[in-house]
């Protein structure tokens, strides 16, 4: 057991933490709205080898673990960076498993993404990074397919300024079928959830940081508002939720890296199964990011509601990055099947 980062993980933390702090100020995030993509930032991230980080070394990648990628994803969240890191690395690992990674994708010249939900008529609706990706991987019935087509380059106007778009399944290449397809896709979906969970932890951390700066600066009734217990207790809940969210996201990544079948036992509170932990981490970090941005915006008072202050950027992304995967209640119900067994058929 080791509940802290290894030296190698700490190095990744320093490199990418420094990168996003220096290269991705909120001015850049604002300038990338409404599409939510900054090509220059993506190019600089590519120079660091980030797109291929999670690929196997045999395929010319960095051989990074899911834990390594989650560290980068957390910094994407901290800076709400307008780059499709999570989608691209998830899609590449899935394509790699099917032997379908091109050099352009590996080098980040082209972007790939994963369609998380099922096809509606002939398209996947609101695919994350769908506005900027040229390759979309997803399920069509019992087939895992890849579609290569021009990225639309624009997104429907949306709450979080995310580069989402509907994508057609026309011209799909089948990568795998049947149980193999469902199995590979389930892993990819769990990886996306795990990395997004890490990014949501990052959003929550930044929201708390912004709140702390503001409540120490802002004076009312002749003292900083952070000296009022009513304000303090609203903020004290956040490091508590964050401690749990960070640990659960890290455990999901650890389970993903183990690649051995795990347990889902409610009675002993023994959960080591990757897909279950990924869904749990995703649900819990979604709530944590929502809570942290709610509380942070609130203690900013009227300024928090103004466009000028950064907390509104985080507030909108906390919701967008989590809800794009669908209704959380639905996610809970599929977790319930794993935890409590399937629903009994009504005769």
């Amino acid at each position, binding site marked *: *057991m*080791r*509940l*802290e*980062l*290894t030296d190698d*993980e700490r190095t990744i933390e320093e490199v990418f933490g420094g990168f996003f702090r220096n290269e991705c100020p909120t001015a850049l995030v604002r300038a990338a709205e409404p599409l939510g993509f900054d090509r220059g930032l993506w190019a600089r991230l590519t120079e660091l080898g980030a797109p291929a980080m999670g690929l196997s070394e045999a395929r010319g990648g960095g051989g990074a673990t899911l*834990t390594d990628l989650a560290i980068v994803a957390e910094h994407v969240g901290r800076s709400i960076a307008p780059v499709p890191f999570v989608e691209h690395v998830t899609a590449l690992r899935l394509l790699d498993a099917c032997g379908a990674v091109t050099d352009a994708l590996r080098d980040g010249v082209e972007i790939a993404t994963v369609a998380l939900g099922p096809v509606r008529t002939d398209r996947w609706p609101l695919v994350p990074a769908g506005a900027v990706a040229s390759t979309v991987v997803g399920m069509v019935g019992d087939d895992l397919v890849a579609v290569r087509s021009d990225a639309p380059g624009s997104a429907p106007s949306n709450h979080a300024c995310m580069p989402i778009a509907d994508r057609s399944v026309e011209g799909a290449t089948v990568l795998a079928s049947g149980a193999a397809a469902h199995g590979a896709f389930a892993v990819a979906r769990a990886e996306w959830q795990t990395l997004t969970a890490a990014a949501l932890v990052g959003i929550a951390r930044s929201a708390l940081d912004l709140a*702390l700066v503001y*409540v*120490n600066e802002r004076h009312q009734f002749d*003292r*900083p508002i*952070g*000296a*009022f*217990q009513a304000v*303090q*207790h609203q*903020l*004290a*809940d956040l*490091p*508590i*939720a964050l*401690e*749990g*969210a960070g*640990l*659960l996201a*890290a*455990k999901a*990544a*650890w*389970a993903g890296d183990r690649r051995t079948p795990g347990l889902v036992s*409610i*009675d*002993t*509170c023994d*959960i*080591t199964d990757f897909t279950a932990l990924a869904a*749990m981490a995703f*649900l*819990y970090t979604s709530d944590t990011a929502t809570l942290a941005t709610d509380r942070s915006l609130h203690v900013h008072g009227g300024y928090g509601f103004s466009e000028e202050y950064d907390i509104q950027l985080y507030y909108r992304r906390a919701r967008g990055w989590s809800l794009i995967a669908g209704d959380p*209640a639905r996610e*809970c*119900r599929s*977790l*319930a099947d794993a*935890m*409590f067994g399937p*629903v*009994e058929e*009504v005769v």
Partner: protein
Amino acid sequence: MDFSLSPEQLEFRDQIRAIARDTLTPEIVERQHTSGTFNSPEINRALADAGFLERSVPGLGKGDPIELWMLFNELEKVSAPVDGISMAMMIAGVVAHVGTEEQQEMILPQLLSGEVLVSLGYSEPETGSDVAAAATRAVRDGDEWVINGAKMWTTMGHVAKWILLLTRTNPDVPKHKGLTMFLIPLDLPGITVEAVHTMGTERTNATFYDDVRVDDRYRIGEVDGGWKVMGVALAFERGVMGGTAMGVPLLHHFRDWAASARDDDGRRLIDDPIVREQMVRVAIDNEVASLMTLRAAYLAALGGLPGLEGSMVKVFATDAYQKASRWFSRLAGPAGLLRFGEPAAAAEGWVEYDARHSPVTTIYGGTGEINRNNVAERHLGLPKAR
């Protein structure tokens, strides 16, 4: 990051699970709810016989906080009555940390036998959260001290042999600096114990001290150094030694019941999508509480006292438990109002019991507000609000 348990830790966990399985009978659980004394001599003895008490006390034996966490966590998950033994182990840790050699020789073997319990004398009729304002006086008289005052919420006081007593020895200095801690026998002349019955079944006590004379060798820590001893005791209390896994048996009891109970339309309750969603939310909170407790234990294993992490997990786990209890009460409807022994009771009465028991958890061992103050001041660096 690595969340795997070592083979040795897994073996220890399996041994604790075996003790729980072999020792915890339905009669023991029932006795807890009829007597109001949340203690099982049978379990305490089994743990002592296996050497597990000595092995897991902080600062003694192996002193591995991960094992200490496992011991209480596993017992808590099966609703074993561990309030008595957890307080005894906490005080064993305090004595091992700050007690004299003589005190360690006198007290530790008793506590580690599992036969002898300790009560905690911190709160008073007029002091609760402001515990450093304790007014129970200890006045020096040669080699002895004379103690006068009253303590509240001295749970186990009616069955314990010892009480850890926070006293005022110097009223002329700032309140934190005039406190001294004693660990004294409860059968000394001048001590009376009165029952205080609670909504949550558990019996606690008020204890009164009327010219109680104790030898100086019962003092724990320095004269006027009682606050430091208190810090050690609280660091053990919050987090690692139980009190963070209440949601696990609650979910387990509710799940078993919901799998057989039918709603008005004849559907199993467990198949209701809303019930399923709430159960999953509780399972997630249980996992989070477990990870936070594990991390507090992990930090303690690295040599620290997990004070702040303990405060954090205490706030999280008790809030989550109350939320779960409210959800399950609502989902169970009238059946959730029926008590143990009623055939139609939801989850054999556990839903009703948890609704009565959960309120105290955000009060004892440091209220939610006191722990949030700790987090705001010590973790977030915000100004003292008091």
